[in-house]
């Protein structure tokens, strides 16, 4: 038994390749996997390799079995389940690590490489980025190379293994493309992949507490991209409305749950000015909120409704990237009448939590001539007194608004919005907090606008008799450049020097924009190739209203045809065993002679025939044949090969 577990170093040559392929397959999973799994895989890889180096036996079966059980329980404990992408890939990864420990033969390595292929594929279940395609190609080539190096009896040159695997992938590419284009796409897939709803996706949540948005402000992740049909709205009009919050407990703002039926809020909307038409591609948020330019008037997204506070939401959470067209009016009036019951919503606040703020608001209101004047006074206070806009505000205690207004005086948009709304309410003016994105950067490379998580913003709406809900952005009073240029712009314009960033980061910024433009195209053309695009493409191909049977038949016919074509091409291209340069050159010579050598006809015999029957000069035929024989059958001689090349070229 001990004998059977022994290793003899025979895998030393191929094992590093298997490990490399496995590591590469694991790469996209690492950020999602618990650290202990990555650590276990690394440990097992090093352990197994040192076993091979020292020709030690692999660990006993009992140890391996108990490790497997422990790891299984570990995955179960970490995820509380074993179904879904996360636990599934974790199990796959940990089992690959354990399989390493019982790898004794080439056959076991093949199993490992199979697992690597599954790992590479399962990374696509999470997300398909632009770099997923090169990653896939490189991954498959690498795994195939490891495969070839495991299968090869003797050590063939690495270049040949790499060449073979690249070629194999190349042969498969047309098939993959055909399947991608013609495989029937169905709006709701037959299968549903359980997505890890638990994993954090950066973005706005349903509630806002101090520090929520400033945490987002450091994320460069794209929230959504917008393509405008005509003129792009001015920076001060780029308020992307998300959710509206009206409940305040002294610290956290929350709102109603997302609407599931139409609220009829459009009836309370009076549009002024020109509409803006645009298309939004929203990255997955795992939330229901659908972002639109203030204020949305029309939208084309299924089961999406407008809430009573003019916020848009979809019934199913946005788990995958969606694209929708929308129409908004930057100039508008809403809710000229406010129902007393609703009015109560917008005036409520816990009196005890932030007493100093309430007191200040009341005294300021008393000093002001009107509600509007009071609003202006508060904004002026934010502007003129020592309030600062900062990405890293100091922590606030249990009376956050008091502490912010009177002590720290440093905050991010949610601090100002929160304080402003509270002051309005204390003075008897209905107010609420709107959360969404503000700004957006036009990408000149792709002629569209990128809105990032860093553009997340909170602002206020106050209700004044006669004018309805009016947007007020207290952050703009403190840091006007935040609103005018957007956070990203601010970072790279005026404050760039303060950040210690110079020209190189401008170049970097340009690169980032280019990369994003490529990503947008990728999303549009590759990932966006769904049922509609497919149908459009089929119509363009001349297939009117194809049903899935027809498409399946087309696919089968196409794949069969392509396979035959590729096989035929390979057959025609096939030449027995490796051919060297001399043989290729000689073939050129034979072609130029216009004759075909018979099977078993030696170059000399052929040369005699060629001297008689071909138009080539007899002396050249003779000397080329002699040189060829010397090059191919004599000892290696680079000079002779060169001569053969020039002689044949001179024909």
């Amino acid at each position: 038994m001990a004998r059977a577990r022994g290793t003899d170093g025979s895998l030393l040559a191929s094992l590093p390749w298997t490990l490399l392929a496995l590591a590469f397959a694991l790469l996209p999973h690492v950020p999602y996997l618990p650290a202990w799994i990555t650590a276990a895989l690394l440990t097992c890889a090093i352990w197994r390799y040192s076993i091979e180096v020292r020709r030690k036996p692999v660990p006993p079966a009992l140890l391996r079995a108990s490790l497997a059980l422990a790891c299984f329980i570990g995955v179960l404990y970490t995820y509380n389940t074993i179904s879904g992408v996360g636990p599934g890939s974790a199990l796959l990864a940990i089992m690959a690590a354990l399989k390493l420990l019982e790898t004794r033969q080439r056959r076991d390595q093949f199993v490992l490489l199979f697992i690597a292929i599954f790992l590479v594929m399962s990374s696509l279940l999470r997300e398909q980025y632009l770099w997923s395609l090169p990653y896939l190609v490189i991954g498959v080539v690498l795994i195939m190379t490891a495969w070839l190096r495991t299968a090869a009896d003797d050590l063939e040159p690495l270049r040949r293994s790499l060449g073979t695997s690249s070629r194999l992938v190349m042969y498969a590419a047309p098939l993959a493309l055909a399947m991608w284009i013609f495989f029937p796409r169905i709006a709701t897939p037959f299968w549903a992949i359980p997505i890890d709803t638990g994993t954090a996706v950066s973005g706005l949540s349903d509630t806002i507490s101090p520090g929520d948005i400033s945490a987002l402000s450091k994320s460069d992740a794209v929230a959504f991209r917008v393509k405008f049909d005509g003129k792009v709205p001015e920076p001060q009009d780029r308020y992307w409305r998300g959710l509206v919050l009206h409940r305040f407990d002294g610290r956290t703002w929350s709102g109603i749950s997302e609407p599931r039926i139409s609220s009829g809020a459009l009836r309370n909307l009076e549009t002024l000015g020109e509409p803006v038409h645009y298309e939004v591609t929203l990255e997955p948020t795992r939330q229901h909120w659908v972002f639109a330019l203030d204020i949305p008037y029309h939208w084309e997204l299924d089961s999406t409704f407008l809430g009573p506070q003019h916020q848009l939401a979809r019934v199913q959470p946005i788990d995958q990237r969606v694209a929708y067209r929308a129409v908004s009016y930057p100039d508008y009036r809403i809710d000229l009448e406010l129902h007393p019951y609703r009015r109560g919503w917008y005036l409520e606040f816990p009196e005890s939590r932030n007493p100093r703020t309430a007191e200040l608001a009341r005294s300021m209101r008393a000093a002001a001539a009107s509600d509007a004047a009071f609003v202006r006074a508060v904004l002026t206070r934010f502007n003129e007194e020592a309030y600062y806009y900062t990405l890293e505000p100091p922590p606030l205690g249990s009376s956050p608004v008091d502490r912010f207004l009177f002590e720290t005086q440093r905050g991010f948009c949610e601090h100002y919005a929160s304080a402003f709304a509270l002051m309005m309410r204390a003075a008897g003016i209905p107010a609420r907090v709107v959360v969404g994105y503000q700004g957006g950067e036009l990408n000149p490379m792709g002629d569209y606008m990128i809105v990032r998580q860093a553009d997340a913003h909170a602002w206020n709406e106050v209700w004044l008799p006669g004018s309805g809900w009016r947007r007020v952005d207290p952050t703009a009073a403190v840091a006007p450049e935040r609103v005018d240029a957007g956070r990203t712009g601010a970072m790279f314009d005026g404050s760039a020097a303060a950040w210690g960033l110079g020209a190189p980061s401008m170049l970097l910024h340009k690169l980032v924009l280019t990369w994003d433009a490529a990503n947008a195209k990728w999303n549009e053309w590759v990932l966006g190739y769904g049922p509609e695009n497919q149908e459009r493409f089929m119509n363009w191909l001349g297939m009117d209203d194809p049903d899935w049977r027809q498409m399946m038949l087309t696919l089968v016919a196409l794949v069969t045809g392509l396979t035959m074509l590729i096989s035929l091409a390979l057959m025609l291209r096939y030449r027995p065993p490796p051919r060297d340069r001399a043989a290729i050159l000689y073939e050129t010579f034979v072609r130029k002679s216009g004759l075909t050598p018979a099977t078993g006809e030696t170059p000399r015999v052929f040369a005699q025939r060629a001297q008689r029957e071909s138009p080539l000069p007899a002396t050249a035929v003779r000397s080329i044949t002699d040189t060829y024989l010397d090059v191919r059958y004599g000892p290696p001689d680079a000079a002779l090969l060169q001569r053969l090349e020039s002689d044949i070229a001179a024909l």
Partner: protein
Amino acid sequence: MHGGSPLEKTPLGKDAGRQALERARASLGKIILDKDQQIALALACLLARGHLLIEDLPGLGKTTLAQALAKVLGLSYRRIQFTSDLLPADIVGVSVFRRDTGNFEFQPGPIFAQLILADEVNRATPKAQSALLEAMEEHQVSVDGETRTLPIPFFVVATQNPADQIGTFPLPESQLDRFLMRLALGYPNAENERELITGEDRRSMLESVAPEMTAEILVTLQQDAAKAHMSEHLVDYIQALVRQTRESPDIEIGLSPRGAQALAAAARAHAFVERHSGVFPDDVQAVFAAVAGHRLKPAGDTSFRSPAEMCQHVLDSVAIP
């Protein structure tokens, strides 16, 4: 043996050996007319340290070729005429009692020469044949329990008359294998036959012919020939040929691994004789019939008129890599 020959003063350089080989070849060509190929093959066989079987009708110059080879190459030569009453002792020698010394003294047989002509080898009994073939194989003979080494180089040219059927013992296939090559000389063309009729008698020509090299030079040449460059492609070719002899439905018994080795060695020596930079496919093709012809057994229902035709058939069906 060749005391006083001017050759002893010639330096044993590589070029000297090469030139001696060229001269020997030219000299042989003057005696045996219009048989360049056969001369090259016989020389290649010798340089590959193989033995040669010449199978042909009487009067076609078998003996002349053997004698000329011995003479030109400067080898000691003995001829053994194989008859049905030939005994092994007639070949290897006997120990005779010397009365003056009171001891048995070994009287070496004709086998103790560098070049043996075993004439009409199929007319002797298998027992006598075996004595010769054992000597060829072992490079030594055992007489009265004592092992005696044969001279170096040691080269057997055996002849066989294919027309003789009555009272002959044709060599079995297993013994034919001992010969590296089997050659047929064939009739000379009209012009050369005229030359034979009118010109100088070959026998007297042989007496006047001068040796062109020594046994020592021949041994160095043998070593050089074994080193002829053989590329991977050519090994592929030899393997493909061997595979074809085994897989062809027209051939019952294909080439053995020893046959493949023989083919490679003969091709090397031929390339050396032809002064090629390495072993060319032409060398393999040139020696193929001579090396493989007597080793292959055609299938019963095939219509090859001769072994040569069968060999040509194999060559014509294998592509040259």
